[in-house]
């Protein structure tokens, strides 16, 4: 072929690609479906009102003419893979991980539609008079997928692996002893725990139960290491178990897992589920309805969304407001939107410095240096004046409008509207360039040199990078050449690890959804602010590594005082402390969207036996056990 014809061919191909890119890919003109999303104008108005108030629950309110049907396979496009899968004491468990947990196992407690935590695998929870001892009784007759019975010993084993793990252990600080007897397990605390273990053992990482027989064969199990076993005993243990092949007791049984973007976790129907219709069913409810569920990691939101539109996925989740808005305007898919008890989007700051007497006391040391390698000592973010100046320079309303499609609202603290501790005015710095300039002068004096420079990590998702470039540009607009911000896009798999290790200065983040402020204490406690020491390595749940005795005191009230008014006042004070000290730059309240092929029914409303429906969508997660497909065929 002559060069001229080759060029013409190239041009024609390029033009056709352009045309394809410009064209609508909704496919709605040609394809019709007998199933509708059932969204009315009134529903939309109600949703907007709820969303504004932070009370969008994400409930699937479609009217269904027929009852549930067994059969079908659902493919769920999830936003990320999980590092160190799948044992709860080791995995970096964010929303995608917790969704998979909901398929393969169950927690001891579940959150109901009112935000109250109710027994689920547990039958009851009782405490002594001073709340230092709590006894959980678990259902009799429930078995793990490998046949191991769920009893007090199994629950104790689960709790022990979590409390002695370097990753999850800090969340169990204060828990002194765990004993098991028959179907009961008793937890003894060194100080009163007014809400008991329910918030830790609900549908969060360590609330989910896994087979002790499986965990006993895992090399990374802390109970398989000294001091729990001697070196000799450890050498003789059978550690041939596969941590990537979890054994739970849930509605679906792990079938296969391949790590990495584009790969999947497949789970098939558990015929002997305790809420099923098998010989060991306790409720004869026939759950689950689906034959199989596959979770496919699709990190890029555009790829995930295109996958749903193309039929590759049947459900996706996203916290990308732009994408949620597109589905809102597209009646072809079911869309659940939820921000009730939701998360906050923010920029997390590493302020680890000085000594940590609280953690030193916990560890029985004389002193503990937070930054022995001086890795963070030059960060300007250690200065509260710099943090305040930078906070004043962020136009959160603009972020909400331009990067949140106008459907999210600016955040002013860790507690969203409707949550205990939320304040209309938390004292967090407003967008005010004059105030920013004043604080900036103090910042420069405090820091001692200009330009003020730091690295700002973001996930490598193009949308997130651009959002954080906008934040950086706001700082440049306010402070000109006196600020240098290096934006570092980080691969998703490393992201949580950097936060745990303290290897960051500023990092875009999303967290703190929950129904009770007691659930948050370990994120912000001095006792969980481990040093920045890669040589150890230290893992901190208080990622920002700030220490504040006043914050610790407020959480003592929240954890120990059963009086709701006192707990609310303490939570509000926590909010104000964040406002004063600016340990994080709050940006917006997170809105989660779950978009699905309309053949998937009952996306929400799993019933808790004896306690009514569960909360529909909490922190972007909904239950999977109750889902079914029209005619038992999810793709149609």
């Amino acid at each position, binding site marked *: 072929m002559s060069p001229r014809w080759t060029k013409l061919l190239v041009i024609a191909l390029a033009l056709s690609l352009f045309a394809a*890119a410009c064209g609508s890919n909704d496919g709605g003109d040609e394809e019709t479906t007998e199933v509708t999303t059932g969204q009315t104008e009134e529903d939309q108005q109600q949703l907007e009102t709820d969303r504004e108030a932070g009370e969008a629950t994400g409930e699937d309110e479609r009217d269904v003419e027929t009852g549930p049907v067994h059969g079908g396979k659902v493919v769920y496009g999830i936003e990320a893979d999980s590092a160190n899968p799948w044992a709860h004491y080791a995995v970096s468990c964010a929303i995608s991980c917790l969704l998979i947990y909901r398929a393969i196992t169950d927690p001891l407690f579940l959150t109901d539609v009112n935000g109250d935590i109710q027994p689920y695998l547990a039958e009851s929870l009782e405490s002594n008079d001073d709340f230092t001892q709590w006894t959980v009784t678990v259902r009799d007759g429930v078995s793990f997928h490998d046949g191991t019975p769920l009893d007090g010993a199994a629950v104790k084993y689960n709790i022990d692996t979590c409390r002695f793990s370097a990753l999850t252990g800090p969340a169990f600080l204060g828990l002194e002893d765990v004993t098991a007897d028959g179907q009961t397990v008793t937890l003894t605390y060194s100080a009163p725990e007014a809400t008991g273990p329910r918030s830790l053992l609900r549908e969060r990482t360590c609330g989910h139960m896994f087979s002790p027989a499986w965990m006993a064969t895992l090399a990374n199990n802390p109970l398989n290491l000294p001091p729990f076993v001697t070196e000799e005993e450890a050498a003789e243990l059978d550690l041939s178990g596969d941590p990537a092949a979890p054994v739970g007791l849930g509605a679906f049984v792990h079938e296969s897992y391949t790590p990495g973007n584009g790969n999947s976790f497949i789970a098939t129907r558990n015929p002997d589920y305790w809420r099923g219709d098998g010989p060991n069913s306790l409720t004869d409810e026939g759950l689950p309805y689906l034959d199989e569920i596959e979770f496919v990691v699709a990190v890029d939101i555009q790829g995930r969304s295109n996958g749903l539109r193309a039929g590759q996925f049947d459900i996706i989740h996203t916290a990308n407001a732009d994408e949620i808005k597109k589905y809102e305007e597209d009646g072809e898919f079911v869309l659940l939107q939820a921000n009730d008890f939701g998360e906050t989007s923010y920029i997390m700051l590493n302020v680890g410095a000085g000594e940590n007497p609280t953690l030193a006391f916990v560890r029985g040391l004389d002193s503990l240096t937070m930054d022995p390698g001086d890795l963070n000592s030059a960060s300007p973010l250690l200065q509260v004046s710099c943090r305040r100046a930078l906070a004043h320079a962020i136009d959160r309303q603009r972020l909400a409008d331009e990067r949140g499609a106008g459907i999210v609202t600016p955040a002013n603290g860790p507690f969203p509207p409707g949550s205990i501790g939320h304040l209309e005015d938390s004292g967090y710095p407003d967008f005010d360039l004059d105030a920013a300039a004043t604080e900036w002068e103090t910042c420069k004096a405090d820091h001692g040199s200009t330009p003020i420079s730091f690295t700002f990590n973001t996930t490598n998702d193009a949308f997130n*990078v651009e959002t954080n470039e906008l934040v950086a540009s706001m700082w440049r607009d306010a402070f000109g050449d006196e600020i240098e911000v290096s*934006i570092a896009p980080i691969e998703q798999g490393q992201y949580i690890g950097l936060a745990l290790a303290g290897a960051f200065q500023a990092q875009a983040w999303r967290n703190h959804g929950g129904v009770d402020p007691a659930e948050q204490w370990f994120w912000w406690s001095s006792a969980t602010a481990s040093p920045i020491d890669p040589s150890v390595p230290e893992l901190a749940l208080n990622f920002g590594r700030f220490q504040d005795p006043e914050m610790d005191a407020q959480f003592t009230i929240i954890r120990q005082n059963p009086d709701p008014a006192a707990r609310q006042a303490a939570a509000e004070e926590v909010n104000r402390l964040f406002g004063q000290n600016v340990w994080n730059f709050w940006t917006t309240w997170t809105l989660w969207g779950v978009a699905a092929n309309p053949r998937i029914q009952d996306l929400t409303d799993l019933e808790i036996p004896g306690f009514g429906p569960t909360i529909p969508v909490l922190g972007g997660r909904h239950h999977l056990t109750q889902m079914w497909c029209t005619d038992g065929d999810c793709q149609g």
Partner: protein
Amino acid sequence: MVADLDSGVAPATAATAEPAPAAIVDAGPENGSDAGAGVRRPKALGVMFWLAVGYLVVLVLAAIFAEVLPIKDPADTFSGTAKNGPSAEFWFGNDGAGRDIFSRVIYGAQVSLIIASVGATLALLIGGMIGMAAGYYRSRVDTIITTFTDATLVIPPLILALSLILFLDSEAARRVFILIVVFVLLSIAPIARVVRASTLVWSEREFVLAAKTMGARNGRIMFREVLPNVAPALISYSLIVMANLIVVEGAVAFLGLSVPPPTPTWGDMINKGRTDLEAAAHISLVPAAVMFLTVLALNFVGDKLQERYEPRESVL
């Protein structure tokens, strides 16, 4: 020069002893025409060639003088303009963060052109020498080099680029350097093959044989006799290599592995506009069109120059 010759006498150099190679081509009979017709007139390059050259010159000048041009800072965001289409103030519209796409396209050219031109130049030097050695010495040297280049060419370039970037790179600050190294490694093999082929032809020519007969050393023959004849085709091919490197850089940037933000690159701009293709297609399409035109122009110019300087058996 004297030391190069065994006789110790400085004769006329091979180059001066032979007619200039270009003159040979130009003076030779063309398609069996009468040798007495005189010097062949070079084929006209055409309007499209000069349009392509003009486009490239404007692009290169804009990229070099971007700092002094009256355009907006590519990192500045303008409130209320996110995803707006072209306007009098923002000729190419605004991206998702409200930045001026026109200015980002020009600054984006800096990265693409620097990486592509430096990469192609270094690859030209290294690949050129390797290819000349293979084509001139032949036998075992040729076998070894050809095996190496063939082996390299078997691996898909984008896969090789991504693997090398991930393997070599640890800090975003060094990304430009790493990208250049990777692109040089990618380009050596194809350039070496082209140069080898050209050298095989030229090293059989009479003036080369004459130089050998006169006792000129191999190095001297390669650089004084062969290289001047291989160079025109090589330089024109390097433009095609540059075009390829711009595309590879775009692909790497699209995957988020090129220079870190906020430095704009065309591939990164296309990537960031991807989510808005339905509502604001210009965010992706403008940088895509500029990249397309640049690659087309480089290919066109390279093709034309290659046609012009390509040695033809009939002429030789």
